[in-house]
């Protein structure tokens, strides 16, 4: 689908559900490429950038946020019908995000604790990933997503190839960068061995263990890693918090959390 001019620019929409808008902002943060992006894509719907609205159908829809409120259920289905390619962006849309922590808790009690008038708040008891509700064509992970991966996805749409997004653990990026493994050298808690790469080992680069915001790598051995973290002296509560962060409701982190939940009672 090589572009030959403005007439065939793919129509792009950005939509959001329960989220902080940080992933949408990643698009705006691509400052050096922004002019080229808008010259090649017709960005018709983008609440973070413009109040202008344009109805579908769209060639590409980027969806941010988790499905958290009753009205989301119909909205996402309607959006899917308007989208030729639907791409979920960020930990909320791809895994449920931090909102999904309520999936292990008493939703009504949480609501009552936070809001003065909980009866005014309409929300679902569970916050879930978009893929739990509609077919998703591609996903960009992270909290927030990586600008380079977003650009690669846009490029792949124009060139007509699969996006070159690697399915590998964060450790791989760490080692290529020459970062000393802090799990081994200082006993730091790190989710790198079970988390998908894409951030270019951002947190380890700054001396922090991985928070797992890109979510589980396909086939991640989360069970062994939770055992490994406990073997190095961490109590189940701490390991629970490590897995629960941003993407805890995505399997296999979810199963580990369910097991740990039993362990900590």
């Amino acid at each position, binding site marked *: 689908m*090589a572009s030959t001019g403005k007439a065939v620019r793919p129509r792009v929409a950005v939509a959001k559900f329960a989220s902080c808008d940080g992933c949408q902002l990643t698009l705006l943060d691509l400052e050096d490429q922004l002019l080229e992006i808008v010259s090649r894509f017709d960005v018709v719907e983008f609440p973070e950038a413009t109040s202008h609205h344009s109805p579908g159908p769209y060639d590409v829809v980027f969806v941010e946020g988790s499905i958290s409120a009753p009205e989301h259920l119909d909205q996402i289905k309607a959006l899917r019908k308007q989208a030729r390619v639907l791409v979920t962006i960020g930990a909320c849309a791809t895994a449920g995000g931090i909102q999904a922590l309520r999936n292990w808790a008493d939703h009504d009690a949480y609501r009552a604790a936070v809001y003065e008038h909980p009866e005014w708040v309409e929300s679902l008891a569970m916050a879930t990933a978009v893929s739990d509700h509609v077919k998703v064509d591609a996903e960009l992970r992270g909290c927030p997503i990586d600008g380079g991966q977003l650009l690669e996805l846009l490029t792949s749409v124009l060139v007509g*190839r699969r996006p070159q997004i690697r399915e590998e653990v964060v450790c*791989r990026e760490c080692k290529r960068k020459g970062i*000393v*493994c802090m799990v081994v*050298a200082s006993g730091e808690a*790190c989710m790198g061995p079970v988390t998908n790469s894409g951030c270019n080992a951002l947190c380890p680069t700054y001396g922090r263990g991985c928070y797992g915001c890109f979510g589980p790598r396909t*086939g991640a051995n989360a069970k062994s890693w939770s055992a*490994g973290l406990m073997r190095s002296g961490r109590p189940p509560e701490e390991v629970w918090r490590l897995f629960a962060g941003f993407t805890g409701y995505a399997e296999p982190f979810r199963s580990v959390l369910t097991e740990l939940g039993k362990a900590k009672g």
Partner: protein
Amino acid sequence: MITNPVASPTAVARQWFLARSDLDALIQALRKAGRTVIGPTVRDGAIVNDEIQSAADLPAGVRDEQSAGQYRLAERADERVFGYTVGPTPWKRFTFPPILPIATAHRSGSFGFEQPKTVAPQLAFLGVRACEIAALGMQDRVFLGSPFTDEDFRARRKAALIVAVQCTTSSSTCFCSSMGTGPEVRTGYDILLTEIDEGFVIQAGSPAGAAIVAHLPTRQPTHAETGAAVDVVEAVRTQIGETLPIAGIDQRLKRQLDNPRWGVVAERCVECGNCTMSCPTCFCTSVTERSDMEGRISVTERLWDSCFDINFAKVAGGDFRARPRDRYRQWLTHKFSSWMDQFGSFGCVGCGRCITWCPVRIDVREELQAIAPVIQPIERPVAVEPVAASPGSYSIARLASVREETGDTTTLSLTDLDPAFLSGRPGQFVMVALPAFPAVPISISRFRANGIDLTIRAVGATSTALANLHPGAKVGLRGPLGTFWPIEDAYGRHAMVVAGGVGLAPLRGLVEALVANRDRFESVSLYYGSRTPEDQLFSDDLVAWSASKAIDVAVTVDRAGPEWKGRVGVVTTLFDMMSCDCSKITAFVVGPERMMQASVQSLISKGVPTERINVSLERHMECGIGLCGHCQTGPYFVCKDGPVFRLSELGDLYAREGI
């Protein structure tokens, strides 16, 4: 093929001494020669290899403590600069970069692909250990040893000057001496340093190295100094020891592709690939494309990758190494087996990085020993010379008593026989003859002080005639014949006897020998299955063995009436009760063919080494001494080379149809 200048015998003869306070002169000489010095320096809690400006960057007075999954720095009591082992940075980082642009392509205006030309930086590697020199050599063979070469690697390798250092300390993860790569640096260096109390004994290994050394404020070393330089390496060699029995591991692994341990270790492995990335010889890569938004210009980059990557062996239709155990096996067998086939050496130098940097603490040495242990071949003791061996000649024995075991099985107690029979061993058999009846092979089911027992199932003319004899009758005997149970194979191990039906007969003598020598074995157990309770042999013995504490007896039957209170099911169902480390079992198995096959299969799947599974084969025998050919099975005559075999001796022949 080593492309780097290597030591020549004349060049190594000369030695110099450089004071520790003058070490910076070496670094500055290298820099003055136009080289960037890459050497050890402390960063992020580890001694990494990185650019060094001066001796002040080196880890003076720092040591490392390494074990599986753990690396910590600590202070040394002295100011030694190289008083650590190997850190997380393999030198391949500088000869085989983790990310390398290998092509650019364009289709705007013209169409084409271009390969960037390597401008290899002139580097000096400071502090290269013996294992690491071996690793560079291994990558030489991979990248430069075939008709297809990696020219980027060649250029970088050629541009690197090697300043090697003798190890003066070791970590618990080191196993270079097992792999034959260290700890002593012998070749492959331009300059070699051995650190002793006050400084360094220096040797040059190439003209380039000698030219650098010539610029240093050195003096002649004293005899004490050169002596100390030799002693310190020898001390490290002793410290490391040879912990991994490596000889033949490549062949041993080839026989263990189905070992269940692959699945066990894969349950722990998180496939982070830290082992392969920190390995100084691993060379797997993947390429990835980056392009402008329209794909007019693209760059192909080569990335360090890992065979633990879940997409590494994937094709459009599926994945050839879909399970974690497949990927773990791929890695370990490549390092220790197929690398040998491809490149003529192991793919491991014993640096121990894969052990230290494994976050789930997998130790390859433990896995290798568990998956492909060295089984010391135990010589079979020589059997007693048989009596009346030739097929026409028999020794006479007298029937002392007859005991009916089951409806169709009878035990004959023979006496007044040649003493050679009493010296036979459990598992051996005799050829038994009556006038006018063809001789039949019968296993010896008990050795008594003054005779032997034969337990006979009346299935043919001779066996029926034998079963109908009365005390006082005479029979002809030849024997004892064949191989016997290698009871010594079970010393210090769990001795496990598995019997089905009349298969208990050739095992009874073994069980009695095991009980008599009980303290030589970790445990002794008997698993016995028969069709019905009525088909059980040696009921009195079973009761007596059960009552003794010497042996665990588990009995089952295929089917039984309501009066049976024991277990029902095939004998393999009893194996689930086993709680010991199955790799420490020595098994002895006899029974009907199908029962033996099922038992053997179950034992293998539980991890019992095939060298430690003994079976006794039943075949058509007439002569009993390997002359008539009836019992031939592959290369063996079962009567002479068997009937007892280690399963590993039979290999693929065992249970193969039509052999």
